[in-house]
């Protein structure tokens, strides 16, 4: 058997039993990369030599320690918006040039300390702004299930790499669905933890009140193990929580009896693909059959979420991206004076979607429009949060589709930014409210494209959503299906 197909927990078990070495596993991942990545383009930067050195070190540690940590020796891909010491970090933007981070993001430090092997940096929409990975300044990533389709975004490279067995697991970030939607489109598992659960230190900032780090994995158990490794308080991120980190894998009991599930009626109205709706309804019925109690709920402000999100997110982005001024790092244009240096460096360095968002955010924050847009959106955000608070009085988790459709075609929405924004409708409310949510495979459409089921939990209740997801996964076979990558 090719070890590249193993899940993290399967590979970990073999490593600890010495049936497999980390070097064999790492080589298998790089073999898959060399066979498939000229078609998929999941990675921007590979670090084979460093990875094999880390694998060798892991094998030494595995020899001495039969109870090694779950991530020891496991090849993991990292979205290229995490700072990785000594490993080029681009954020899929030209403005960063060949930026060489002088330090590791805290999440990277955690996985390195746990002994993970970093395979490389994966493609994304520039500055994590997009839903298709087409906004990369380098190249679009393709969906392993169909090369004509997008892998989703912005963590499209990470999701495609996991789906294509080019790594065992991956890290992504999620500001409006950027882990969950690509996970759904690529038929893998993706978790956006509660805001504050994982440190954002060393993540290239997009919208700081919503950005969150999370895992993309082959199954739910892997997701729990990855979250255990990266969660926790970090003095360098004052929004990270000092709550203790539960052993999430203990929540994977397979038992959902008595859990109360809310199904928001506003998520099943116009615009949803019929096959997506069927698959999600079937999933809900299955959970009900296994003892969960299902109830229809209402999240009445759902239809305002896209408008609220694209004001809040772009306002924060316009402010965060002010640091790209060509002075201390990144691209500097040749210009006659300081102002022109700023204007031209940014003109040359940023791509069209990033410019659009900077413009939109600057507009929403500018004198005369602040109250009508930014402040109004913050009011809308409060209402969306209240909707969830009320719903969680009655239920333990909320079940929805992850996206209204399966993966769309490359080029289909890129010319129409508003249509692209509207495709985030089911994921963005979660970020506005700071909640945790997970996407896992729940079927395929007639074209053979994966469908994602989203489970939303209460603040800091990742355990319940993992428990539900695991129970569903145990009762189905979707997660075992693999794409056949054609020439």
């Amino acid at each position, binding site marked *: 058997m090719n070890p590249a197909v193993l899940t993290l927990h399967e590979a970990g078990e073999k490593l600890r039993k010495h049936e497999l070495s980390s070097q064999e596993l790492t080589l298998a991942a790089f073999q898959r990369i060399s066979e498939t990545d000229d078609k998929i383009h999941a990675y921007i930067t590979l670090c084979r030599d460093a990875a094999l050195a880390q694998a060798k070190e892991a094998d030494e540690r595995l020899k001495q320690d039969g109870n090694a940590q779950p991530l020891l020796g496991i090849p993991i891909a990292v979205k290229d918006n995490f700072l990785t010491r000594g490993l080029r970090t681009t954020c899929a933007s030209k403005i960063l*040039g060949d*930026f*060489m981070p*002088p*330090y590791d993001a805290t999440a990277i430090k955690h996985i390195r300390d746990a002994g993970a092997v970093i395979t490389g940096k994966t493609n994304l929409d520039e500055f994590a702004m997009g839903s298709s990975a087409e906004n990369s300044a380098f190249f679009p990533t393709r969906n392993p299930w169909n090369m004509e389709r997008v892998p989703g975004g912005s963590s499209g490279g990470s999701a495609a790499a996991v789906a294509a067995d080019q790594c065992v697991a991956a890290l992504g970030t999620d500001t409006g669905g950027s882990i969950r939607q690509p996970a759904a489109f690529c038929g893998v598992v993706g978790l956006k933890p*509660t*805001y*504050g659960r994982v440190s954002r230190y060393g993540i290239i900032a997009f919208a700081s*009140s*919503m950005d969150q780090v999370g895992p993309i994995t082959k199954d739910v158990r892997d997701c729990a193990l990855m979250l255990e490794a990266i969660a926790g308080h970090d003095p360098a991120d004052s*929004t990270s*929580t000092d709550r203790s980190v539960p052993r999430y894998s203990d929540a994977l009991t397979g038992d959902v009896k008595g859990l109360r599930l809310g199904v928001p009626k506003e998520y099943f109205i116009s615009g949803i693909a019929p096959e997506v709706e069927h698959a999600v309804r079937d999933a809900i019925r299955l959970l009900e059959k296994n003892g969960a109690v299902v109830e229809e709920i209402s999240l009445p*402000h759902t*239809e*305002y979420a896209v*408008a*609220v999100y*694209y*004001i809040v997110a772009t306002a924060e982005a*316009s402010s965060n991206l002010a640091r790209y*001024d*060509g*002075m201390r*790092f990144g691209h*500097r244009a040749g*210009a006659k*004076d*300081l102002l*022109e240096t700023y*204007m031209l460096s*940014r*003109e040359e360095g*940023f791509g069209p979607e990033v*410019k*659009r968002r*900077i*413009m*939109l955010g600057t*507009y929403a924050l*500018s004198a005369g429009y602040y109250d009508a*847009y930014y*402040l*109004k*959106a*913050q*009011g*809308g*955000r*409060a*209402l969306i*949060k209240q909707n969830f608070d009320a719903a969680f009085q009655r239920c333990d988790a909320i079940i929805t589709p992850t996206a209204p459709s399966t993966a769309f075609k490359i080029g289909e929405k890129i010319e129409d*930014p*508003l249509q692209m*924004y509207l495709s985030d409708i089911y994921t963005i409310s979660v*970020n*506005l*409210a*700071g*909640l945790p949510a997970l996407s896992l495979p729940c079927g395929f459409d007639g074209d053979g494209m994966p469908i994602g089921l989203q489970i939303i939990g209460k*603040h800091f209740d990742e355990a319940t959503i993992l428990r539900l997801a695991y129970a569903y996964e145990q009762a189905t076979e979707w997660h075992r299906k693999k794409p056949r990558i054609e020439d």
Partner: protein
Amino acid sequence: MKLTREEVQKVATLARLHLTAEEEERLTEQLDAILRYMEKLNQLDTSRVEPFTHAVDVVNAFREDKVTNHPNAEALLANAPDTDQTFFKVPKILE
């Protein structure tokens, strides 16, 4: 009210973003469509809620005021477009 090209120019200057004539034209059109969509927020009654800026209850996170200098100035300067010894070299600010 339709977004004008002058407004787009003004916002671009605020954002320190030079736009080509073509970009200006396209952005005027696209931003106008997006802002029209955003107008649906006017239907919302937000008079009874506090504007909500943070997703979880965050209070001030106090810590000890300890100096922790980054030990690797060389690596920091290595990313700079222009340097002079241990300084970032930038364009002249005053004439």
